[in-house]
């Protein structure tokens, strides 16, 4: 049975429907990538799973229990942590305080502590007493990932972690993903950068206009399949 | 061309007819109603004026003021000053009351506009306190204990003798009737004036500023200027009402004329209960308020407690007030502001 599953998930912003019956699955210790163009509904999907957007009770289940109607903090306490799009560090908090806040709702013993996060991203140890927002974009992204890891989540949702970063910085951040996998977390990685996504994912979903248009393992999908699923067959 | 942009609705046309009849009845009221009714109606009309101006500020302008008592009190003291110090007749002095309120509104706005949101609210209150404390230092007008209008001034007031003769009433009753008619004129002018303002380009811009200052700026609405216009207009109107109220009372003290409960708390409750951001709301609100006061006034502080709790409940359950509930259910607009396209056929091709 899947660890995390959405069934016929829909979402609205006011009158605008952003998701139309999305079904995805994430297995234990699996890494799934969700790719798609701007406005495809990827971030909406992440926000729905994390509980920032309201769902039907039955639409999301985690470890066999339905979590669709829970609030964001309750879902986080279950063990689903999120790295939000745009990093969203707390400007009033230092780097270390930003990391520590990740343990607020869930104090679970596990691999990830301040020390292991600093091992993963050594630069953060040097900047630990700086305000989070004084860091470069890439370093801020590291803090956001570390902050989510601090709760030792069973599922890590990473929303657009390469957005707006230089290629060399993206490479640094993606180097951490195998270590996060090795420590036992299952992951959903939302990406516009198809190459990065394909390199780390066990399976890929492609979204367009609020629907899943294609799914499969990276090596089973041809470039043309992905191109059509990404932009629509008419292009 | 069969198209027409209009704000009229069938309900608003009926409302206009009913309103016209109501105005005629209200003008004729002193010919058949007793003095008590006239005094009650004076109270209702002046509170309605204060409520309409606070609603213009808060409901349309987004400027929540808790300092309206500054303008009521300033207007009232200006009227007393003009009568007592300069020997003017009280009736024309009402205009001076408005002007005096307008004059102190300028520095008030200058300070209060430096604060936003909730801090603006308390800022206006501080300034009202400052004005009250300063006026209490004005010894020739009685200092902290206040003073009365001289008997000679109230006896010889304009129109009073005319009313005495025409209606066959005593001087005191004639003064109440005069005050009532002036209040009626002020109320009609206030409602008419605000309705007109809201339907002009300026008024539409006002709604845009309230809904979203940034967006309004981007389409070229000068939000700062609109705030000034609204603030000064409502200070002027509130000052006129203050002058009129105290002309009728003929006795003044700083604590009464600058009372935050009488001139701001009641007014806020009227608008919130009736429906903020509509012209109909304060009208409904003042009637509900008067009914509550007649029923509960003997219970003193229980009455005010009820008003406070009622305002909380309305704000949480029906933030658009009683009129909002009614117009949501029925789609009724007696003072429609929205422009609608009527007549003609909506086709894509022109003949």
């Amino acid at each position, binding site marked *: 049975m899947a660890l995390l599953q959405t069934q016929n998930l829909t979402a609205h912003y006011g009158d605008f429907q952003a998701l139309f019956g999305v079904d995805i699955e994430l297995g234990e210790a699996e890494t799934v990538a969700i790719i798609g163009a701007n406005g495809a509904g990827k971030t909406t999907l992440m926000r729905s799973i*994390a*509980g*920032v957007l309201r769902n039907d009770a039955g639409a999301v289940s985690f470890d066999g229990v339905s979590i669709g109607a829970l*609030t964001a*903090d309750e879902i986080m*306490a279950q063990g689903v*942590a*999120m790295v*939000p799009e745009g990093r*969203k560090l*707390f*400007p*009033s*908090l230092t780097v270390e*305080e930003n990391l*520590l*806040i990740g343990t*607020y*709702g*869930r104090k679970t013993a596990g691999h990830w502590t301040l020390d292991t996060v600093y091992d993963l991203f050594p630069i953060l140890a040097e900047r630990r007493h700086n305000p989070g927002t004084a860091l470069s974009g890439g370093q801020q992204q590291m803090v956001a990932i570390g*902050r989510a890891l601090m*709760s030792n989540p069973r599922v890590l949702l990473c929303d657009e972690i390469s957005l707006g970063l230089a290629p060399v910085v993206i490479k640094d951040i993606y180097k951490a993903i195998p270590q996060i996998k090795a420590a036992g977390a299952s992951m959903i990685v939302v990406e516009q950068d198809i190459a990065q996504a394909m390199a780390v994912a066990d399976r890929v979903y492609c979204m367009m206009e609020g629907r899943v248009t294609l799914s499969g393992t990276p090596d089973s999908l041809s470039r043309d399949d992905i191109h059509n699923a990404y932009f629509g067959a008419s292009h | 061309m069969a198209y027409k942009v209009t704000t009229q609705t069938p309900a608003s046309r009926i409302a206009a007819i009913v309103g016209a009849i109501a105005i005629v009845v209200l003008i004729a009221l002193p010919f058949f109603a007793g003095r008590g009714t006239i005094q009650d109606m004076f109270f209702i009309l002046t509170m309605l004026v204060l409520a309409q101006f606070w609603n213009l500020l*808060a409901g349309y302008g*987004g400027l*929540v003021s*808790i300092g309206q008592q500054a303008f009521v009190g300033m207007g009232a003291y200006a009227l007393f000053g003009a009568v007592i110090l300069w020997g003017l007749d009280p009736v024309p002095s009402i205009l001076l009351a408005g002007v005096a309120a307008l004059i102190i509104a300028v520095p008030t706005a200058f*300070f209060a506009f*430096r*604060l936003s*949101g909730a*801090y603006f*609210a*308390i*800022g206006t*209150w*501080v*300034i009202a*306190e*400052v004005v009250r*404390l*300063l006026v209490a*230092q004005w010894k020739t007008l009685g200092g902290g204990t206040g003073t009365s209008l001289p008997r000679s001034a109230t006896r010889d007031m304009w129109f009073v003798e005319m009313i005495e003769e025409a209606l066959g009433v005593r001087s005191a009753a004639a003064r109440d009737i005069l005050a009532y008619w002036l209040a009626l004129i002020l109320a009609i002018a206030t409602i008419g004036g605000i309705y007109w303002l809201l339907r002009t380009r300026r008024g539409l811009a006002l709604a845009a500023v309230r809904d979203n200052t940034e967006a309004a700026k981007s389409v070229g609405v000068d939000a700062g200027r609109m705030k000034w216009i609204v603030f000064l207009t409502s200070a002027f109107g509130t000052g006129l009402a203050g002058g009129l109220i105290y002309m009728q009372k003929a006795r003044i003290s700083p604590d009464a004329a600058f009372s*935050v*409960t009488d001139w701001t*708390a009641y007014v*806020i*409750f009227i608008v919130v209960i009736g429906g903020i951001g509509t012209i109909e709301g304060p009208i409904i609100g003042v009637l509900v308020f008067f009914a509550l006061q007649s029923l509960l006034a003997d219970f003193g*502080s*229980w009455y*005010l*407690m009820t*008003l*406070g*709790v*009622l*305002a*909380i409940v309305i*704000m*949480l359950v029906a*933030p658009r007030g009683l009129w909002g509930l009614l117009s949501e259910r029925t789609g009724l607009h007696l003072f429609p502001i929205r422009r609608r396209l009527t007549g003609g056929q909506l086709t894509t091709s022109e003949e």
Partner: protein
Amino acid sequence: MIWIDTIIQGILLGGLYALFASGLSLVFGIMRLVNLAHGDLIVMGAYLILVLVTLLGLSPFLAVFVAVPLMFALGWFLQKFLLNRTLGEDILPPLLVTFGLSIALQNALLEGFSADSQRLPTNALTTASVDAGPITLGVMPLLTFASAVLVIVGLNQLFYRTELGRAFRATSDDATTASLMGIKPANIFATATGIALVIVTIAALYLGLRANFDPNIGPARLIYAFEAVIIGGLGSLWGTLLGGIIIGVAQTVGAAINPEWQILAGHIAFLVVLLVRPRGLFPRAND
């Protein structure tokens, strides 16, 4: 010499105003909510202490320890079940709801305790004074000022040294992202208002010990508190203390010139600061 004395009395009076203001500052800093019933809650706290003193025969200083948990609970429930429902983009609901609360509370107190003024019982300690060179200082004003400093030190420790304080700051920055970290913003806000009412209770103790109080004096305390917060700069607690001191000194100096000018002088000082430094003396960078 008389001027130095006046100024020192003013500084000590500023401690009382800082106590009035700290709760307001805390709540505004965390949830951008201005509670117009703040002054009435202080007066209510004074009546609560008075009732405890009368019923249990406690000294006011001990009665505070009974009052504090009660007031914390009141603040928690008030925020959780009433004020949280008013938070949002629109500034009208919180203003009008707390204004309604202010009027309701004032009149409930009038109904319960009449308009007669009351005072908490004083003893030898509270009326004592100490000689500091040529100046005589009351023990009560000194205690008030020391309490204000302690409250501010305590709040700063809470904010910058504890997990709860981190959660306060994170929620203040971005409530949605905070909820992704397992924080329940609704509960954080409730806790903050609970703590604000703990400070209100301490302020109420000194209010009731130093002077007479009656149900109608709440709004004036709100105004002093508000002036102190604005002068200090929104969200800065030490700024709030300084703001309280400025109001206090202006009032005592004003009163020394002409007793009728006491309150007026405080307001004028506030307007002058607003004129020169519209964002207060220590404005927060990200507001």
